[in-house]
């Protein structure tokens, strides 16, 4: 899988094409080919970003967004993994939960917003629920598939050493399916970020999503772009953190 941390044989060249695009963009702006109100020049966006950082105004929304994401993503990961393992290791739980999961999974999560508003109010709980709902299904499905796809040889090896059921799950099933669980989490990471922004647009009084929408409504396009840059950096940083975590958690990935 191409990932930002692996340069795919690109190395120092990675910066070239973005630089060219930025130059063309800047030039187009300076030559008046673009409407500066709708599409500010890169330098203007950078200036707006710098002002944002200098004023410290970047902090509160960033903390809000990151906090929301971390809480939501963690919950999604834990719940998804837990239910996935439960369904994969118990026929009874599988029968109980599978129809419900199959019913809820294909619903586009934004469509559930009114229900969430009704039961959880307009605020933190709804936002977290949105992120969790979006993130838990990919984790759940890929955990389930990961556990079911485990090689019988592995499980039988463990069984012949007479281990308890809980130890079987904790020290064999969980680590062995970790690569698949993490693959699910990688999908959840992307979806979670999308939903965090959406949730903030819908139900927050703070956060990057809220800021972007607010700035758009008052037509402060330059600042809006600055926030989008912040968002891209944030997204890239999260993926990077995930990559590093994954490499440390499953150093054997793709080698056995």
């Amino acid at each position, binding site marked *: *899988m*191409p990932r930002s941390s692996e340069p*795919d*044989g*690109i190395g120092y*060249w*990675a910066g*070239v*094409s*973005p630089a060219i695009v930025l130059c063309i963009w800047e030039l187009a702006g300076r030559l008046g080919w673009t409407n500066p109100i*709708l599409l500010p020049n890169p330098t203007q966006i950078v200036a707006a970003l710098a002002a944002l950082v200098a004023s410290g105004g970047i902090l509160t929304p960033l903390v809000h967004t990151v906090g929301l994401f971390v809480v939501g993503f963690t919950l999604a990961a834990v719940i998804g993994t837990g239910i996935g393992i439960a369904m994969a*290791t*118990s*026929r*009874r739980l599988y*029968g*109980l*939960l*599978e*129809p*419900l999961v199959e*019913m*809820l*999974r*294909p*619903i*586009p*999560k*934004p*469509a559930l917003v*009114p*229900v969430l508003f*009704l039961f959880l109010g307009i605020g933190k709980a709804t936002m977290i629920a949105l992120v969790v709902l979006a993130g838990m299904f990919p984790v759940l499905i890929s955990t389930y598939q990961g556990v*079911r796809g485990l090689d*019988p040889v592995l*499980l039988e090896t463990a069984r012949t050493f007479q281990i308890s*059921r809980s130890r*079987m*799950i904790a020290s064999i099933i969980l680590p062995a399916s970790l690569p698949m669980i993490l693959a699910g989490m990688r*999908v959840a990471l*992307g979806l979670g*970020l*999308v939903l*965090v*922004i959406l949730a903030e*647009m819908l139900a927050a009084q703070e956060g*990057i*999503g809220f800021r*972007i*929408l607010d700035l*758009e409504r008052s037509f402060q*396009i330059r600042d*809006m772009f600055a926030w*989008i840059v912040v*968002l*891209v950096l944030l*997204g*890239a940083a*999260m*993926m990077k953190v995930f990559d590093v975590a994954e490499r440390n958690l499953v150093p054997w990935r793709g080698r056995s």
Partner: protein
Amino acid sequence: MSAVDRLNVSDRERSEPRSSREWLGGRASGVLLIVALLSLWELSSRLGWVVSAYWPPVSQILAAAFAQLMGGEILLSLAATMRRAAIGYAAASAAGIVLGIVLARSRLLRCGLLPLIEIVRPMPTPAIIPPLILFLGVDDALKIFIVALASFFPIFTTTYAGVAAVDDTLIQTARTFRTSWARTLYAVVLPAVVPAIAAGLRTATGLCIVVAVLSEMIAGSSGIGYYLIETQYAMRPDLMYAAVLYLALTGYALNRVFLAIEMRAIPWMGKS
């Protein structure tokens, strides 16, 4: 058989039951659970445990769903959404597959395009809708573009990874038979990546509908996403829930159809 034992039975023993009775057999408890939850919903609304204009009884939703179907209106909305989803999906597939293959095979293009793709990748869809409205307007162009953008990444990523993972033995085999570059590409590399591409395409089918609905909710004037908002403003939650139901059914059916096609068209999936 204990729960963990289940894990140890061979593939043959665990293969899915066939007849519908068998299907229900394993899932009877799950179906009961759903029925119980829906009954709870019905009661909570009828008996006033939850008081809200936006919490209609399930029976009313089902009635609305039936009326919608008879009226045909819901099908039009669904069709509008699906049309956008399909066009965006098709564009994303073409771009994702071509770029995935080309970038995996050409270092020059990889240097040029991969960094740009990596920059766009972490951009959450809702965040870019506002600026995009300013460029693409609110019409189909916007929604199709967003759908295409969101669907592009899973397709591109799996294709790219798939090509990179094509076993060297295969390509070497073709080489010893003195197969031309072009023929190696379409007769060896392409079929070898088809399973990976299919996996990406399947992920994207779910995604393209979600994103189409989302974009219609934010900047819509037709389609199911807009319908969801419109019915809320018209205080018709029964219609809204019914629409969600249709949406879920469509998503589910699409996934099933995709799996069925996959099984027929790519019999070698997961087999090499």
